[in-house]
């Protein structure tokens, strides 16, 4: 049976794009895209930057730290924005969380 799929993004989550959602630079249209089943999403610049940092090892807090430092912006506001964006992606089914290795 299927386990619970729904992901709730928090500061401690370590999100990553699942294998069926591919972040790619579209050379023809000169835009970043996320390729997903039957859909092509157009992430904005910030979303692209967040997703490039989401490698399944960094947690959402780490990602926000990096962005706060880079843009000299308040971490709290960035964290809130990052969570909203990632939760939106999760609700659309295009985000997963790194699993603990249980070998």
């Amino acid at each position, binding site marked *: *049976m*299927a386990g619970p*799929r*729904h*992901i709730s993004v928090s500061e401690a989550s370590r999100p990553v794009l*699942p*294998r*069926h959602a*591919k972040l*790619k630079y*579209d*050379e*023809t*249209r*000169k*835009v970043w*895209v*996320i*390729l997903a*089943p*039957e*859909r*092509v*999403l*157009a*992430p*904005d610049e*910030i*979303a692209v930057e967040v997703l490039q940092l989401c490698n399944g090892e960094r947690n959402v807090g780490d990602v926000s730290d990096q962005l706060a430092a880079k843009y000299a912006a308040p971490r709290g506001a960035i964290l809130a924005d990052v969570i909203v*964006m990632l939760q*939106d*992606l*999760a*609700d*659309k*089914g295009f985000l997963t969380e790194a699993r603990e290795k249980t070998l």
Partner: protein
Amino acid sequence: MSDVLGNPVIPTDASDSLAVLEKQRSTAETFGIPLAVLLEITHRCPLQCPYCSNPVELDRSAKELTTEEWKKVLSELAEIGVLQVHFSGGEPTARKDLVELVKHASDAGLYTNLITSAVLLTRERLSALADAGLCHVQISFQGTEEGLADRVGGYKNGHRKKLEVAKWTRELDLPLTVNAVMHRQNLHQLPDIIQMSVDLDADRLEVANVQYYGWALKNRAALMPTVAQLEECTRIVEEARERLKGTLSIDYVVPDYYALRPKKCMGGWGRQFFNISPAGKVLPCHAAESITGLDFESVRSNHSIAWIWQNSDAFNRYRGTGWMKEPCKTCEFREIDFGGCRCQAFALTGDAANTDPACALSPLHEAIFKQAEREAEGETNRFLYRNFAGGTLESENGA
């Protein structure tokens, strides 16, 4: 290449950080290269669904493009800016070279979908497809229990096999879409289909009511739902969408006979979609060959695919709004729905340039709506099965 391809795609609403990428819709003349292309790599199929979207005149296997020809097509599609390809049919797994083609597409940077009936797949072959880079699997279901599902597909033990392949799909960590084609004889199973999709750990469910061209038009009297069935269907889908948010996403296609406004078929002829037939014809929609009097260019011609898309007569014939007659010509919705579906207009009125009768503004709308209602009363449930022989009528006792 970008000069040849017209305007670039522009992301929609800038306030949405994850907008769905679509063509700019503000003018009728925008037709950049489509984001996704449907490849009907064969018309061969072990199933015989009476609503098959393939043309009634099927391409025989001898006419199919070769492996090398399909590879060339895939490379060309990637080069001109197509991002996704759907391997479909017929039954795409009936091609022995499917793994090779998926690998070639993946290597070219294309996102690959498999649209399959699943009955020919083994676990080894599915695993090989996953290794070749397959990104997504879409399996058709004809119902939720063997009796009805196998009867609709005209294929014994098909349903059981589909369930098995769906399970393997998730075990291999491939995303799964359940494609449920709905009609009068299976709409009562919709709640079970939704639950089945959740149980199969599917990511998406397509609840696609039959669209009545080709084979489905021949079977309309056996398939047309009642208005009451459709209203119930819509209610069930809406309830499930809310309940399963974040677990199962549900796409919903209603049959247009009972609508007042026609669908924006294919997003408008030649605006954002083309498909390639088994024999290599580049088509504005998978039913387009049903319109007689149009010549469709082939990838076997000496034209590039981009040229065919931009310049061929078949694509330009119904592109934009210049071809329209009244009532479309002066209609305020002409750039919203582009007069509906050309294939349906042709099938029901004999002229593809007429308004699609699904539109309430068509002089034929009322008559067609009434006819659909009469047929939905269910005088006959017998199917005409889809095959290369032009169809075989189901026997009286349903075999």
